C-alpha cells in the first residue's frame, strides 16, 4: 500500500508538472494561472497521499493550508487585472 501511494503521488506530481508547460507556453496570463492552479490541486493530492503513505498526520494540515491559500494568487490576479482595466471601474488611482 505504501509503495502504491508513493507511486501514485509520483504519478500525479509528474502529471501536474507536465501541465507546467502551460506556464512556459502561455499564451495568455489566464493559461499560466491555470497551470499554477492545477499544480496547487495536484500538490494537495500529493501531500495527502504522502501523508497516508508515511503516516505523518500533520501533512493533512499542510494540505489544508494549501487548499485555503493556493487559490489566492489566482484571485489576486483577477482582481489586479480587473483594476488595471480602466473601463471596469476598478481601483481609482489617486492623482
Amino acid at each position, binding site marked *: 500500500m505504501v509503495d502504491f501511494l508513493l*507511486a501514485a503521488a509520483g504519478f500525479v506530481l509528474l502529471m501536474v508538472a507536465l501541465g507546467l508547460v502551460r506556464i512556459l507556453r502561455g499564451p495568455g496570463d489566464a493559461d499560466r494561472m491555470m497551470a499554477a492552479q492545477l499544480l496547487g490541486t495536484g500538490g494537495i493530492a500529493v501531500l495527502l497521499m504522502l501523508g497516508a503513505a508515511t503516516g*505523518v498526520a500533520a501533512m493533512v494540515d*499542510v494540505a489544508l493550508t494549501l487548499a*485555503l491559500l493556493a487559490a489566492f494568487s489566482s484571485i*489576486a490576479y483577477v482582481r489586479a487585472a480587473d483594476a488595471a482595466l480602466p473601463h471596469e471601474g476598478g481601483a481609482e488611482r489617486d492623482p
Partner: protein
Amino acid sequence: MTGVLFNVALAVLVLGLAVWTIIAREAFAAVVGFIAYGLLLTLVWVQLQGIDVALTEAAIGGGLTGVLLIGAAARLRGIEAAPGAERPRNSLYWMAGAVSAAVTAVLVICVLALPDPAPTLAHEVALNIVDTGVANPITAVLLAFRPMDTLLEAIVLVFALIGVWSLAPDDSWGGRPGPVQQSDPNGILAYAARILPPLGIVIGIYIFWTGADYPGGKFQGATILAAMWLLLMMAGLSEAPPISRGWLRVGLVAGPLVFIAIGFIGVLTAGDFFGYPQGLAKPLIVAIELALMPSLTLVLGLLMVGAPQRVAKL
C-alpha cells in the same frame, strides 16, 4: 527506491521552475513560475521532515508572497518593456554567469564537505523539552530556547509595516490603505468570500492551537487568518481600516508588548528574562502565542494591502 525517484523528480522540477523564474521574458510569467515553485517547495519541506516549515511555506510561499507579487506584476503589466539603462552588456552577462556558477560550485563542495555524522542540537532539545511543557520541539525552540528571535521576528514585521506605511503620500497619511475595492456583492468572488472565511478561521485557529504539541503555531495560523481577511477585502466585503485608528495601533503592537512583559515577569519569577517558572512554562508559552496571534494577523494583512493611498477623511 520510489522515495528517491520522487525526490529526484521534485528536485528537477524545482530547479526547472527556478530557471524559468529567472529567464522568462515577461515578469508576469516569471511570477507565475515562482508561485508554482513555492508550491513545490512545500513538498520539498515535507520530504525533508520539516512539517512546520512546510506549513509556513504553504502559507507564505503558496499564499501571501504569491499574492503580493502577482498583484505587482499585474499592475506593472506592459511597463516591463522599458529596459532601463542597467541591462548588462554581454561581457558582464558572462561574467555574472561565471561568478554565479562559481558560487554554486563552492556550495556544492561545502555541502559535500559537511561533517558526518552531522552535529545536531536535537539531543539537547529532547533533554530539555520536558521543562517547557510543550511537545512540539519547534515551538519549544521558538518560545523557550530562543524566544529572542521570535520576539524580534514580530518586531521585524512591525518595522516592515512602518516602512510600508511611510511610503504613503503626505495627504493620505492616516487614511485607509490600498485601492478602493469595488465589487459585485452577488458576484462569485463575494460568494467565495462568504464561504471560505468561516472555514478558514476555524482552520487557522486549529493550526495555531495544535502548534504547542504538533506542527503548527501562531505564525502559520495568523497567516491563514490574515489571508481570510485579505479575501474579504479583495471581495469588497470589508475595508481596510484607516491606519490612524487607535484600536488598530493597539492591536498591532499588543502581541510584542505582551511578549516583552512576560519576558520581564520571568526576571521576577524565574530569575531570567524570558525564563518561565517551574510548571508555568506551557501556560505562559500559550499566552504569548495567543497574544501574538491577533497582532500577527493584523500586521500580515496590512503588509499585503500596502500604504495608504487615499486622502484621509477627517
